[in-house]
């Protein structure tokens, strides 16, 4: 701007000189908004290009990619920790982990580990809350041996006793640390507040449940749930010299053919029934920074408002430095390193909205007040055009990054299949940009009104209670008043039983 003004006042001669210099000036525009770009529209791949149904039952996504001499196979298993019976919490975790770590019918655990290590193959397995996974990554030249090992792991695991004991000891040791880190405490209590004590994600492994699990339990669990009818599989990479995609598919078919026992189809993931109770909840722990989560019930990703909710959250606190909570709590006030919000569209049931930050205990109440103000603002007024456009771009123009490698691509599609979205909306990603583009400012405000009931928030604060309730005199915010005056003390839990500890016992 300044240069232009000066130019207008200069003599003709100087102007001529300036014009002679113009090519350089043209090269570097004064502002990035002046840049022009070659046109480019990204077209994501289609699941159909990779999808096939194996004769032995499972759906498979198979992609050839010979850039590196590696191949990766991911077997997803319907089921999860919700399949662990009451009193045997930890069974799914152990049965999942020990598939790869406990040996097979023909190989002791030690022999299996040594062979995998010699082949530089990585074989891992486990059950998470709502799915199991067995993954193998190895050199293309070893594919056939790797598939033979994988077949044995899936159909004839040994669950060696000493490896069960080792894993138990490791988990017991981990258990001892349950009250050490405020991040762990916060995560746990958040779960209890959101979904209630009885919900399966809150049924923690205890010392007693862990010690009750036997090798027979593992075998029975495995035979019941690890079955081709629960499998979806994704393969990407180099299939080996001269091996075509069709031949690779035949190999995969053999992997799941003639299953030696008959299992069951996994039941659906249980749906929570608990209603989050508003209020302020405090866990007292003597550290010099508090961790705060502001929570509300949200929605499932099948909800018609889901796309609008994503955009709304991006403006509010999900978009990092382009979002309002980050700008105010972090950039303006310097109150936290990480501050923002998230809406995870629940795959199986409505998940939660959560805004969170970590700040020195005496400014936690003030930062919470700012978060609540921003939630109110996005509800009470429309977002700006620029905010809307920035949020949309952050979804639309980054889509290609989900498909950066063939391995990522087949795993994205595996997820689509596994969660049932492919069956309902096979072109979900093809239509992704158009759907996000359709979201209007009115949609954003409507969904904010629906979801952000600031008078109903449950606020969890973990930190030194005396300091949390003794605000910095510069910002004398009374923490409990932010949630209608209600404060509930949450005691730490006994790490071995997960029962709340009596305050005196601390």
């Amino acid at each position, binding site marked *: 701007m300044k240069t232009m003004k000066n130019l207008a006042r200069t003599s003709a001669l100087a102007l001529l000189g300036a014009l002679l210099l113009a090519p350089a000036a043209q090269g*570097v525009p004064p502002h990035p908004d002046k840049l022009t770009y070659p046109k480019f529209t990204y077209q994501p791949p289609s699941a159909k290009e990779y999808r096939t149904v194996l004769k032995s039952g499972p759906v498979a996504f198979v992609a050839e990619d010979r850039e590196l001499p590696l191949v990766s196979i991911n077997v997803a298993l319907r089921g999860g920790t919700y399949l662990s019976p009451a009193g045997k919490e930890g069974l799914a975790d152990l049965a999942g982990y020990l598939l790869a770590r406990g040996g097979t019918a023909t190989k002791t655990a030690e022999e299996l580990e040594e062979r995998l290590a*010699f082949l*530089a193959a990585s074989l891992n397995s486990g059950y998470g809350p709502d799915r199991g996974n067995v993954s193998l990554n190895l050199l293309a030249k070893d594919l056939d041996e790797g598939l033979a090992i994988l077949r044995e792991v899936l159909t004839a695991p040994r669950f060696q006793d*000493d490896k069960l004991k080792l894993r138990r000891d490791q988990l017991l040791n981990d258990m*001892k640390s349950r009250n050490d880190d405020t991040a762990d405490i916060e995560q746990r209590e958040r779960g209890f507040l959101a979904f209630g004590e009885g919900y399966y994600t809150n049924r923690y492994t205890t010392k007693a449940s862990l010690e009750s699990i036997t090798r027979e339990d593992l075998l029975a669990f495995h035979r019941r749930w690890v079955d081709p009818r629960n499998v979806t599989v994704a393969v990407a990479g180099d299939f080996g010299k001269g091996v075509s995609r069709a031949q690779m598919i035949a190999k995969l078919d053999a992997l799941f053919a003639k299953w030696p026992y008959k299992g069951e189809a996994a039941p659906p993931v249980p749906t929570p029934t608990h209603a989050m109770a508003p209020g302020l909840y405090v866990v007292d722990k003597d550290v010099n920074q508090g961790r705060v989560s502001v929570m509300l019930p949200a929605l499932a990703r099948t909800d018609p408002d889901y796309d609008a909710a994503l955009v709304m959250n991006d403006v509010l606190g999900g978009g990092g430095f382009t979002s309002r909570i980050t700008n105010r709590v972090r950039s303006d006030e310097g109150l936290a390193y990480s501050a923002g919000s998230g809406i995870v569209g629940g795959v199986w049931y409505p998940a939660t909205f959560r805004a969170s930050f970590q700040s020195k205990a005496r400014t936690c109440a003030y930062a919470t007040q700012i978060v609540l103000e921003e939630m109110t603002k996005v509800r009470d007024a429309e977002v700006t055009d620029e905010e809307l456009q920035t949020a949309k771009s952050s979804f639309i123009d980054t889509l290609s990054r989900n498909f950066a*490698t063939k391995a990522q691509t087949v795993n994205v599609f595996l997820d689509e299949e596994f969660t049932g979205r492919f069956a309902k909306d096979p072109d979900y990603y093809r239509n992704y940009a158009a759907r996000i583009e359709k979201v209007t400012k009115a949609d954003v405000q409507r969904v904010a009104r629906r979801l952000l009931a600031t008078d109903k928030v449950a606020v969890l604060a973990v930190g030194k209670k005396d300091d949390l309730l003794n605000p910095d005199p510069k910002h004398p915010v009374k923490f409990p008043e932010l949630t209608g005056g209600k404060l509930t003390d949450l005691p730490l839990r006994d790490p071995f039983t997960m029962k709340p500890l009596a305050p005196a*016992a601390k």
Partner: protein
Amino acid sequence: MTIRRQILVAAAATALLLGGPAAAQEVKGEEHVLPNGMKLLLVHRPDEPSVSAGWVAKVGSANERVGMTGISHLFEHMMFKGTKTLGSKDPKRDLEIIEEQETLRGEMRAEESKMRAAWRRGEVDDLMKPENKTARYKELEAKFDALVKEQRDLLVKNEFDRIYTKNGASGMNAFTSYDMTAYFITVPKNKLELWFWMESDRLKDPVFREFYAERDVVYEERRLRVESTPTGKLDEAFDSIFWHSTPYTWPVIGYASDVANITKQQADDYFATYYAPNNLTAVLVGDFDKAEALKLATEYFGRIPRGKTPPPEVTTLPTKWEYDLRFEGEADTNPTAEIRWRTVPFQHKDSYALSILAELLNGRTGRLYKSMVLPADAVATQAYAVHNGFVGPAKYAGSFVIGAEAKEGQLPPEVAAKALAEIERLKKEPVPADELRKVKNNVAANSFRRLSSNFPILLQLMVNEAYGDWTEINSGPKKLEAVTAEDVARVAKTYLVKENQATALVSRKAGSAPSADDAALAEVPEQVRPMIKQALQQLAAEKDAAKLKEGLAQMETQAAQVPPQMKKGFELLVTKARERLAELEKAGDKK
């Protein structure tokens, strides 16, 4: 949630990355040097329609001094605060406000100096407490806050981020370590010119606005990563002792009071010295035209003048100590033992054998796991080994680290002794060929795995370049492949010796959490609890089955005479002694 501008801390043994890809898979980088000294490295990979782009400044906490530790990292934060063009609606007034703020800060510093003197005399306790600020300080602070408010009304908040985001860029971040500061992002392939515009603008005309709020952010980051974590402060203390007499002795994030006192003037000077183009390398990996990229680099980065003076070299060489350092501490954590040795820096000819040596010890089929975790008489539940961890301190000195988490009932010194026995074995017995092959196979395969997409390649190139040579990504794997069994024994004997050694023994802070026995112990009357607890520890450490059997028999004969207040404790001891004996006998059977 996005977490940006982070420091990578070296301690994570899991973040092990040895070097680069195996010989067969070369990264074909094209190197150019602009007339102003800035280096450009181009790697064409058309897989995905995007470019992962970054630049690395060859400066990190090793270039700092006490009094301004943490400035490299704070400075990294400041690089996102905008430029003369971006970030303010009224750049002229914005700069004036910054001047006025600095004047006030000068007066505030004078007050801070008085407060520090009062602290030294013991008149105030904690300088961070708001109640301890002087009246004059509060008055100045109110004036300062008013200026911040005025400035805020003129800001285009985080415009630097906004422009990138609305143009479809993602993953903008940066990190600071001991030896480097790196900035990176991924842009759609048609937006490469935007990257050149933005990065050259912030290198040419940065404005370090909102400096003091950002300093507070960094202080919160320190609380988050160090002060409020179970072992953060202990790790920091051990690092400091281990690295004494080297520029790695202070933490990357800086000492607390240094972070709270770094001045904007210091940041300005730092920028002029270390962010001159002659100290930077830009790296592009992805789908772009190389000639076009070179043209844009010349046009955009070429505008930045070379630094007036070259950055000063780090001349501190590690002193050799001649003793076995010991560090003991307590924290809310499971007991652990870690042993470290000072070794050699990046690309030292012995660094490859040390890396192979670490891999022989590390992992589920590594020697530490086999000797410490798997046996029936295991002492640990986890074990690890690493030489010069990825992004760890490595430019001016090196470290070899082994460690383990103690199993229930085991004490850190025993765990350390067991780990050291494995080191001694490596010095005496040559490594079998199969075992060496296994380790090398994994080193090679993992180097392929790190080449699967643009960003990991960019990261490795920037890191290697900052240590001194990006081509390590291609040459390192060959040197690792060439390591022999003799090399391994030789470097173990040369470097893993007492004169180079520091041991950290960490126990659980008393009463910080129940141990597995504490539930049972809780039922024992309080006055005898410590005694029983000690006996239980001795019991768990007992290795001689015959001796234990004898003791148990003796206890059983005494059962009738036990006084009532001892009864619970006595029963617990007998139960535990039986369990321990069964364990020992089982272990004996297997041998």
